């Protein structure tokens, strides 16, 4: 997949405009304004962030119980590389951290829910020619739905995770989700699917961290947490070897199809259109170069006729899009408005105009952006505040109208 830059990529965070109060666990419990300690369920992946988050929740005086989510029906014994949090080793690391912190610890088997809501959806989305983000899906359906619902039913007040994001409690009792204090570590994008009810029971003790990851590791070390030196996890946790194409091929089978250029001329073949992502450059294996000698990118994926369309980078420029399944952190915005948008987990911000029309979000970019694929989530921000998110359905290219879902 190509990495495309947006205006303002990795820029410094905007100053925080007049918020009532910043939610850090000790002062402002998510459920009430009283200072009583909360019963908190800390989701512990076995990594350093969630361990430090749980420790901070304890330090803030809350009654914390750790839980590791078993998301794989047949977990591997050990981690291979830096992927995932689903091995037995990760579970043991989480348990060890909970023991050091001094909290009860359980493993909850959510493998079936995860398979239904995240993995099957991931495969179905690719099969339909879209590019899903399973992490958002997991936050929406698993961590802040299946897990949260069970936690609430069992008498917990909140679910605590190691995400870098900030929940702000307004004076009127409403809640807002904001970027983390440190933009470089901000993870509000993958939490953009949370609604206000979910936010009301979310606790992100790392959200106000201005320190670097090294300093979080140092904090873990200081707290005696052995996970301090554990590598960060990246990529998709349920694809252990990182080979997304191989994973999809094993689920969807191989089906040879054509790779064509913008004029419709066949320039190569592929083993399944689902294996491609819009904006992708590598792995096309087109034998001969383009006429202009420039690299070619995936412009469009058509699962119906199993065709992949390629073309020059410029043709990737998207000027507008529509998105479905909007989820708002708080009230839905009325009328057209000016926002910044983020289109991928580690992407930057880009200014947009957006409006809701007939239940669909329409977004126009001030400057064209590249690498936008149906299925991805667009998260809208007002300053540091997350306004909401939606799933990209169609895009408008600068030159000619192109991709549809």
């Amino acid at each position: 997949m190509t990495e495309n830059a947006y205006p303002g990529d990795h820029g410094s965070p905007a100053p925080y405009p007049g918020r009532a109060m910043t939610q850090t666990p000790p002062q402002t419990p998510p459920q009430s304004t009283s200072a009583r300690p909360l019963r908190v369920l800390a989701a512990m992946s076995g990594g350093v962030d969630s361990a430090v988050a749980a420790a901070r929740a304890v330090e803030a005086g809350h009654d914390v119980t750790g839980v590791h989510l078993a998301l794989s029906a047949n977990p591997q014994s050990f981690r291979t590389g830096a992927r995932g949090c689903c091995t037995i080793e990760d579970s043991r690391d989480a348990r060890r951290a909970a023991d050091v912190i001094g909290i009860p610890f359980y493993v909850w088997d959510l493998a079936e829910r995860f398979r239904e809501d995240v993995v099957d959806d991931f495969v179905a989305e690719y099969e339909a020619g879209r590019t899903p983000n399973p992490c958002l899906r997991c936050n929406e359906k698993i961590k802040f739905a299946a897990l949260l619902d069970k936690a609430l039913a069992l008498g917990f007040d909140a679910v605590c995770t190691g995400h870098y994001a900030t929940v702000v409690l307004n004076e009127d009792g409403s809640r807002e989700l904001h970027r983390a204090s440190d933009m470089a570590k901000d993870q509000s994008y993958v939490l953009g699917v949370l609604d206000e009810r979910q936010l009301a029971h979310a606790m992100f003790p790392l959200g106000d961290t201005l320190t670097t990851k090294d300093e979080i590791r140092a904090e873990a070390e200081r707290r005696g947490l052995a996970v301090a030196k554990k590598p960060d996890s990246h990529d998709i946790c349920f694809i252990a070897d990182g080979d997304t194409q191989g994973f999809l091929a094993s689920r969807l089978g191989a089906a040879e199809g054509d790779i064509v250029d913008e004029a419709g001329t066949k320039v190569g073949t592929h083993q399944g259109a689902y294996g491609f992502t819009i904006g992708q450059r590598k792995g096309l294996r087109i034998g001969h170069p383009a006429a202009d000698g420039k690299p070619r990118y995936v412009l469009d994926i058509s699962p119906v006729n199993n065709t992949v369309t390629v073309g020059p980078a410029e043709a990737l420029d998207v000027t507008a899009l529509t998105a479905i399944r909007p989820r708002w952190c708080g009230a839905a915005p009325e009328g057209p408005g000016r926002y910044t948008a983020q289109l991928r987990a580690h992407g930057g911000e880009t200014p947009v105009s957006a409006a809701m029309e007939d239940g669909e979000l329409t977004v126009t970019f001030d400057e064209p952006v590249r690498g936008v694929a149906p299925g991805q989530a667009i998260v809208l921000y007002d300053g540091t505040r997350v306004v909401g998110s939606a799933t990209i359905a169609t895009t408008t290219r600068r030159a000619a109208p192109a991709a549809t879902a």
Partner: protein
Amino acid sequence: MAYLDHAATTPMLPEAIEAMTAQLAVTGNASSLHAAGRRARRTVEEARETLAGALGARPSEVVLTSGGTEADNLAVKGLYWSRLAADPRRTRVLASPVEHHAVLDAVDWLATHEGATVEYLPVDPYGRVHPEALREAIARDPGSVALATVMWANNEIGTIMPVRELADVAAEFDVPLHADAVQAFGQVPVDFAASGLAAMTVSGHKIGGPYGIGALLLGREHTPVPVLHGGGQERHVRSGTLDVPAVAAFAVAGRLAAEGREEFAAGVGALRDELVAAVRAAVPDVILGGDPVDRLPANAHFTFPGCEGDSLLLLLDAAGIECSTGSACTAGIAQPSHVLLATGADPDLARGTLRFSLGHTSTKEDVAAVAEAIGPAVERARSAGLS
């Protein structure tokens, strides 16, 4: 804290701690010939005699091991190998489906790696193997049976097996019968000679002795192929330097368990009955697992319809009550109990179990704590449902 997980492990008896700590300061390898070795050997052999006395066995029938799991493995694998070596037709292993994993996984391993054919004996809704079921299984082809293994009492649901009758059937066909008596020892009369068993497993830390010590009671005519090879200790079937302090403490605990069994069973049984009555009063639709009468006196096993056992565990833990779901887990992930599934229970029901196991430190206060906490916990767990 109400500790109600004595079947997992029970606190060491003060007398056993005393015996163990006294020996920790003494040097001597029981296999050495010099004075220190002789002193250690004397301690070990006296302990062996004590254990033999407590279990109705001859001292030479006590093979000391590192615990119940090792004793089960030695019995199952060792007898399979020796019986097969004597007659290559003996590839059948008959086992109850409600065994502890130390037996279950050992027989599975024989099936997957050693060419054994494992046949699981049918059990009734209480998890009991009937002698007729064993007879039928053996009689299908008596010459092909390597061994049979049926636990003395079930660790999850507490049902006691008719060991003597099962052993009689096995003896008719000259088939060695092994029983895992880890949970039975100290709660029901366990007499190795009277049982007619070929081999029987016991463990130290379930009766107030230390961890890491157990024994396989092994009839003198049986010579299983060793699992551990080495210095030839323990009749050459279990090599390894003996843990003298643990052996000494195990013997003390074993003697006290046998001597005090009747009184313990009566006292703990009455307390257990109170607990069952309290849980039934708080949760009218609860299902008592195992045989309601012929069961371990310290065991109470329940199924709570509509609940996840894990949720109950969490809620009770938060209320200061320590118990168990009773079933084994994989990497901490709760699995429906194989014991309940074997008794024909609905798989959803088999996920909603709790085992309370009482012991020598249990009190009326422990029972009162359960009586108070169980109703609200079940209500909450029900609302959380089965995920």
